[in-house]
Structure formats: C-alpha cells, structure tokens
C-alpha cells in the first residue's frame, strides 16, 4: 500500500500502520521531511519535537511487531497550539513573556490521550499572542500563513493549527476556542474544526485566556479524523475543575447515520448581517444539501456577542494584570493596549454581561426543544491579506480583527458545541458552522459527515504554487 503521507487522512495513516502496510517510523520521517520543506513558507510550527517523534514512532512499530494493540491513531502525526504543555518546552502561548517560564514537566492531558491512542506528537504551533486574536498574526514569531495563499491570514488565534493541517504538515492539530479561535482558522484555511461543549474536554495544563469561555478541540481535513481525535480525548479529568463528570460518548459509530429525521434550521438575523456574498453562497450550498426549509432567529445574538466581548476583555485583563504591570514592553502592543483597556471596564458591566449570559442560555436551549441543529456562517468573509486592518462592506469601512468572530462569539458564549465544515469555494474556502445542543457533538459530526459524503463540504488541497 502506498500512501502520500502529506495528504493522507489520520484514519488512513492509522489503518496502514495498524495493518503493517506502513511503519510509524516511515510516516514520521516523511512528515518531518515535509515539515522541513514547507514550514519555512507556512510558519505554522514554532517548536518541532523531532527526536521525541522518532522515539515514539519506533516504540509504536515495536509494539505492533510484538502483536500489541496500539490504538486507533497509530502513527498519526499531530501537533498542538503552543499554549498546550509539552514536556520539556516552555509553554509560550504565543508570547515573548512566557518563554521565560520553566519547561513543562508533563504533557497536557489531551496530548497524553492522543498519544495513548497511538498518535505521534510533532511539536507546538504558532498562535496569536495569549489567544487574544482572530488573525493568526504574531509579532514575536511572525504570522501563520494560509496554505491557499501565503499572502493571506490563516485566521486565529489557532493560526498554526490551521496552517499545519491545511498545508499537509500533519493531518491533525489541536487548538483552543474562546470566542472562535478553532472555527475562524478552520473557515479561512478550509478545514473541519470541532469546538466541543464547554466542559467536555479537559483544559488542564494549557495556558488559559478566559476561563469561563475557553474550550479545546481538534482541527482536521475530514470529519472522520475529527471524530477519531475527539473520541480519544473524551473523559473527565480532575485537573480541570470545569470538566464535566460525564462518561465518554463515542461518536465514530454515529457518523454514517445520515440526517434523516433531524430537524435543522438556518440562522437568520444577526447571522446574515455583515456577510459577504461568499459566506452566503457557502451557507446556501449547505442549506440546499441538507434540504433545510426553516429559518430561525437566535434571539439577542448581537447582544450575546457584546456580552462575550466585555467578559473577554475583563477576564483577560485580570489574568494578565501583573504581567501588564511588570512587563508591558514585552507584549505585542496591540494585545497590550486591548488588555489595558479591558482592565478599566467597571465591574458593573461585567456583572450585567454575566447575568445576560444566563438569560441568553435559557432562550437558546428552548430553541433546541424543537430543533436538532442550526447552521450559520463561520466567518463573514474568506481569508484577508496578512496585515489587512479594514474591509469595506456596503460602502462602510470596518475593522477586520473584531469582525472575523461576529458569528462565532454568540455560540461559544454559552458553550454550545459546533463543527466548522469547509465549503471549497474558489479561490478561497470558507466554513459554515453546524451548531447543536450541549453534549450533542455526535449530531454535529453526523451532519458534517453527510455534507462531506455528498462533497458539499471538503478540505480543498492547496496548489502550493508559491
């Protein structure tokens, strides 16, 4: 069996390694060679753990030779946003300041769980400083570059995660999503991304941003790979007090059940405002493919965006208060000035936002009494140019940064799970969100798989004509 490792899915790599058709070591060497060739252009990796990867791959091959079960991700290369602890590395979280921290003594639990399922860690990935970002740009490490057009943003803050997977460096990466940081790069890079329910996956030993909004999750080139990784990472963890005490609910065997009988609506109102034609075209393709005839309004979605914005600014500033006092010169100036402003928000407003949050949650949960899923755009436009500050819509100039997340904020604000599915428009892809009720990631993945099976959604391969 011959595999083009760079563009093989995680499922295919694992099947080949488990069947003895390929060795984990050969997969690793091919991926390291590919990484050395393409990462200088993509700037996706900030740390490459080559020795560790080789040792891990050799151990997997040895276990297979001894007839031992290795796991459903046998030999699959993966990498993580550099806010995850990787033993032996300082967890930089996209910052200059954190490089002074002592190296992590243990891997983050999600890294450990993927490795326990047979995957091979390749290193840490570029990201926006302290995750306060939607662009994938970083003043310390340089911008992550979009594999579909190197002059364009990957989206962020999990920019390296998007670039590494879309660029064929690894088939699987982990990111974090506070207000959209998995779904935005999935949209701009043309990938599948899962932001699970708040509390589903452990965030232990990852550098936080806004604890009450932070989620971790996978990015991949297929729905099946998302499910493989997600299933391997589920389960409670005492290390993260916010992790729900729920048993794992595997999704892999649910993927091919189709969408018959599912009640799916498209979001209108807020989720149409500010959308460029390509975002609406992608949404329309999904609506047609799923036979959706119902449009609903998510009540007060724009106010939910505002509340998430306020909580983020305030909680983020609280997290970094001492660093702002002592090391302000070492921040990305754009992040520093946002955090300083966030520190000045009166508590009165934050309290109102938290109270509104509960009200909003209750209204949205009522929608799911009569619906199984809602589809909405993931971003209002395709990848902007790196460094682009503004865009013009209907003659009005607006900032790129804050607008990239207008459709993702109102969903993560109350912890709803969502899968971003890539619609391969030309010249650039863009994603649609499949939003479901808490703990129903299985439904979102089923719908994503249906869209992939009908080729409405798939991760397009970049031309690599640099």
């Amino acid at each position, binding site marked *: 069996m011959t595999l083009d490792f760079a563009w093989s899915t995680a499922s295919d790599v694992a099947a080949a390694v488990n069947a003895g058709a390929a060795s984990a070591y050969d997969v690793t060497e091919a991926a390291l060679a590919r990484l050395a060739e393409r990462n200088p252009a993509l700037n996706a990796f900030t740390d490459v753990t080559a020795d560790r990867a080789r040792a891990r791959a050799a151990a997997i091959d040895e276990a297979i030779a001894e007839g031992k079960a290795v796991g459903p991700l046998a030999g699959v290369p993966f990498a993580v946003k550099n806010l995850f602890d990787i033993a032996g590395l300082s967890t930089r979280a996209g910052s200059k300041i954190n490089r002074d921290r002592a190296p992590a003594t243990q891997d983050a639990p999600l890294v450990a769980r993927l490795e326990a399922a047979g995957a091979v860690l390749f290193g840490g990935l570029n990201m926006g400083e302290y995750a306060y970002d939607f662009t994938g740009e970083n003043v310390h490490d340089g911008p992550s570059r979009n594999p579909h057009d190197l002059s364009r943003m990957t989206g962020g803050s999990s920019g390296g995660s998007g670039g590494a997977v879309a660029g064929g460096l690894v088939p699987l990466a982990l990111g974090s999503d506070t207000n959209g940081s998995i779904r935005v790069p999935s949209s701009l890079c043309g990938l599948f991304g899962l932001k699970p*329910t*708040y*509390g*589903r996956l452990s965030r232990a030993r990852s550098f936080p941003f806004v604890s*009450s*909004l932070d989620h971790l999750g996978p990015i991949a080139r297929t729905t099946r790979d998302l499910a493989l990784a997600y299933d391997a990472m589920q389960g409670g963890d005492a290390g993260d007090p*916010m992790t*729900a005490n729920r048993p794992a609910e595997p999704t892999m065997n649910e993927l091919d059940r189709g969408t018959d009988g599912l009640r799916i609506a498209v979001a209108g109102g807020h989720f149409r405002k500010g959308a460029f034609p390509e975002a609406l075209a992608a949404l329309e393709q999904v609506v047609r493919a799923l036979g959706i005839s119902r449009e609903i309004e998510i009540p*007060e979605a*724009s*106010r939910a*965006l*505002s*509340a998430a*914005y*306020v909580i983020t*600014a305030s909680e983020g500033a609280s997290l970094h*208060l001492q660093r*702002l*006092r002592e090391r*302000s010169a070492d921040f990305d*100036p*754009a992040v*520093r*000035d*946002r955090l*300083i*402003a*966030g*520190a*000045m*928000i009166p508590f*009165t*407003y934050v*309290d*109102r*936002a*938290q*109270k*509104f*949050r*509960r*009200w909003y*949650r209750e209204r949205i949960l009522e929608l799911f009494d009569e619906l199984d899923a809602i589809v909405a755009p993931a971003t209002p436009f395709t990848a902007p140019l790196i460094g682009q500050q503004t865009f013009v819509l209907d003659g009005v100039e607006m900032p790129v940064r*804050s607008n990239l997340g207008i459709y993702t904020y109102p969903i993560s604000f*109350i*912890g*709803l799970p969502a899968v971003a599915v890539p619609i391969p428009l030309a010249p650039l892809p863009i994603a649609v969100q499949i939003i479901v009720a*808490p*703990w129903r990631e299985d439904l979102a993945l089923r719908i994503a798989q249906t869209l992939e099976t009908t080729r409405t959604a798939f991760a397009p391969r970049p031309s690599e004509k640099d």
Partner: protein
Amino acid sequence: MTEKKSLDAYISAAATTLKLPLEEGWLPTVRFNLEVTLKHADNVAGFALPDDAQVAPVFKA
C-alpha cells in the same frame, strides 16, 4: 470637558489606580479599545433583566 477628554482623564486615573503603565503613545489605542468595549457594554446594559437575575460566572452547559 469633551467626551474624548473625559475618557482620557478616566484612562489616566484608572491606570494610576490600577498601577498600570501607560505611555503617551499608547493612549489612542487604549482609548479606541475602551470605546469599543464600552459600546458593547452599553449594548448589554440596555437589556432589561429581572432584579433577581443570577450571574453565570462559571457556565455549565
């Protein structure tokens, strides 16, 4: 006092009170970010909530 001057005075006082550094060149960006955030805050504050509304400081899905 104009609205801009009033906000600048607030930023300056808040920076001193919070022991945050604030160089003169940072002020326009800090002001811009604060203005945007306060606009969002006003949007939320304008929503009528019952007096017994409870906060959701730690969200449980």
